């Protein structure tokens, strides 16, 4: 039997037999080389309670070349692209070792959610958010976990009655007062402020003219 196939089959079987790790690997179609992995968000992080799915493609020269993984579930994290789900992790690149398995790689992804590396970001905007205002970043990450990964949502009981717009402001990690100030200009004020990173101490450095300029782009 082909060594790659034997190895992948065994890895899938091992994962099925292991009840403790909560990591799951399933087939997407007929091919054993295109899989879907999933794991729960780690406790004590904004991702807690969510369930994250990962697209796994096993290359021809596996296990001597690393597996290709990306998030199917949208994740708000500095090392994960908020648009494509691409992951920035050393073991998926040069630090790959043939001894690593699908399961161990998925566990590494899980622990990546615990410990972001904002200095080596995949998504610069998210990383900027993380660096400038950690608490606002956490709010957004919790919100994304709730919306996309089936998480429980914010723990404080403010009630969700404040309408859709408020939520959008929260996703972008902005404050409503700031958004309202520029609302008259354009309906895309949330986007623009997010791009400018209009948060926390940054606000003092961004003139209103600069914001308007960004809005009119």
């Amino acid at each position, binding site marked *: 039997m082909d*060594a790659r196939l034997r190895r992948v089959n065994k890895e899938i079987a091992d994962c099925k037999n292991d009840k403790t790790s909560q990591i799951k690997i399933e087939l997407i179609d007929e091919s054993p080389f295109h899989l879907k992995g999933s794991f729960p968000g780690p406790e004590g992080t904004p991702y807690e309670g969510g369930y994250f799915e990962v697209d796994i493609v096993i290359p021809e*020269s596996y296990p001597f070349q690393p597996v290709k993984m990306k998030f199917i579930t949208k994740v708000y994290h500095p090392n994960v692209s908020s648009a494509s789900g691409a992951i920035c992790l050393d073991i998926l690149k040069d630090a790959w070792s*043939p001894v690593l398995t699908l399961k161990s790689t998925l566990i590494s992804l899980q622990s990546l959610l615990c410990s972001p590396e904002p200095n080596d970001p995949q998504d610069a905007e998210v990383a900027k958010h993380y660096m400038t205002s950690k608490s606002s970043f956490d709010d957004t990450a919790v919100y994304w976990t709730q919306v996309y990964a089936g998480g429980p949502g914010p723990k404080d009981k403010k009630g969700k009655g404040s309408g859709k717009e408020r939520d959008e402001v929260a996703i972008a990690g902005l404050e409503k007062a700031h958004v309202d100030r520029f609302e008259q200009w354009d309906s895309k004020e949330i986007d623009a402020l997010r791009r400018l990173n209009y948060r926390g101490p940054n606000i003092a450095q961004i003139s209103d003219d600069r914001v308007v300029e960004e809005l009119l782009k």
Partner: protein
Amino acid sequence: MSSDYEYSDDDGDYYDDEEMIDGTQDDEEGSGDEMMDNFGDDFKVAPKGKHKSYEVEYESLSQQAVENMMQQDVDHICGIFGVDEDTASLLLRHMKWNKERLIEKYMDKPTSVLVAAGVSLPEAPPPPPPGRTHTNAATQPNSRRPTTRGTSKLLGLASGPKSAKLPASSPTATYATPKPLQRQPSKKADDAFVCQICFNDAPNLQTLSLDCEHTYCTDCWTDYVVSKVRDESEHSIRCMAEGCALVAPDRFIREILLPEPGAPILDSKKGEQNAKTWIRFQELLVRYFVACYHSLKFCPYPSCTNTVSCPSAASKSSLTTIVPTVSCGARGIGSEIQDLTQSQQFGLGLHGKEHIFCFGCPIESDHRPVICNVAKMWLKKCRDDSETANWIKSNTKECPTCQSTIEKNGGCNHMTCKKCKHEFCWVCMGPWSEHGTAWYSCNRYDEKTGVEARDAQSKSRASLERYLHYYNRWANHEQSAKLSVDLYAKTEKKMEEMQITSALTWIEVQFMKKAVEEVEKCRTTLKWTYCMAYYLGRGNEKELFEDNQRDLEKAVEDLSELLESPIEPENIPTLRQGVTNKTVYVQKRNEIVLEDTAKGFLEGRWRWNVKVEGFDDPEEQL
């Protein structure tokens, strides 16, 4: 040419010199001359005797010659440190072949250097005393460790998943000595072995490990090495275990890829692939070595494995005074690419073409007389779309009301904008209604706004025209050089024809071929003189340069015309006379251009009209 050339020890010493590593070359001229004298006879490319001012001294080295240089460094380190060859070469590679730094660091902290280079494991005891490892190496000609496993398959399956923990932290000190491979039989020889990569648990499975004792089956090791070498072009191959930093020594890789005689024959396809991987691995090692030295450069032509050594062009500052055009001496494409037939090579213009390239920059041709920085700047300008904008600026105007860009392609000055229907005068850009009765001739021409607009426009047009003037001539010579493939074929036919129609022998018609070669060479020079002229600052120097350029161009065109002229049997003697004379003349003119510019660079005579790295700022701005 370099295959039959014996590498001598003298050259090795030359490279051992510390100066080489720094890329400086102040006092090296003397030894360089000596070197050329010793080998001048073996080299067609090396100039004999005193070299011309526009040529640099260089030497072509075969892969074998570079390997010998590497071997000398390795031997040197072996002698000093008392380590075996594999360790020495791993240490040298780790230090980017900087021997002095390695010696310094190693004398200071041998253990940490050994660990960092991937030779020994962390927390290792100091390396064994000199001499011991040599005996070790000598007594281990075969470091493969075939292990026969007698346990049943069933047992292996059962224990397989549970033995997933690797023996990574084997505390035994004996494994940490910097000898290349383990020969001791595995302590767990009785347990069923399951390769943790392919999960193969077959009895009689052959396994291998480095000093770290991370054992995997030989097939996995082979696949791993092949994948690293062929897919990633990696020459430093680490142990497969996660986080293990040990690097596989060359002997280990060789044994994996090349079965010793008498070993069971693999399937031939795989064996062939492995052998190719071994060749590729050796090439990668040489390439890495070459990349570590500023005075060496790998030949950029496809599948050529030669290296050129050019110490005089090793430093960046030297590139402002010389144009280091070199050749590795080989011609055409190496025989390894069998997919390319002779005719295909011919089509690509590579057939029999000498591997000429610039030592100082990535341009794969002769760009004399112009220096690397300026040539690079020119090529970038030609590639950029910036000239499109220039064209728009010179050929269009904007509608005064709606700002649409308009190109006037005929008709009178009474413009009506297609978009906003605004009527205006093309000359003064004012509204047409204000022209009153002065139809078709603008009497407002000299008014304030008009003067400014015209100035801006004519300036932009002049700069575009200037660029196009140089570019067209540059491109023309480039095109001609490309067509030279056809010219070669045509000339060869003509030469045959001449042999038939006249009493001339083969050797006597060679003047045609010589002339074609000379024309091609001169066209390359001419091409780059236009780049040079474009950037040269105005002044007497530029005028003299352009005079030389003009003389060469005229001579080349005359000769080209002669070559293209039809052959009549009765005028062959005159043709021969004319072509030979002109060839010599063209050759002389080419030399004058090259020599004069080269001297100019050495004397610091040339002034540019733009900022060029390593030169003073231009006085005039264009």
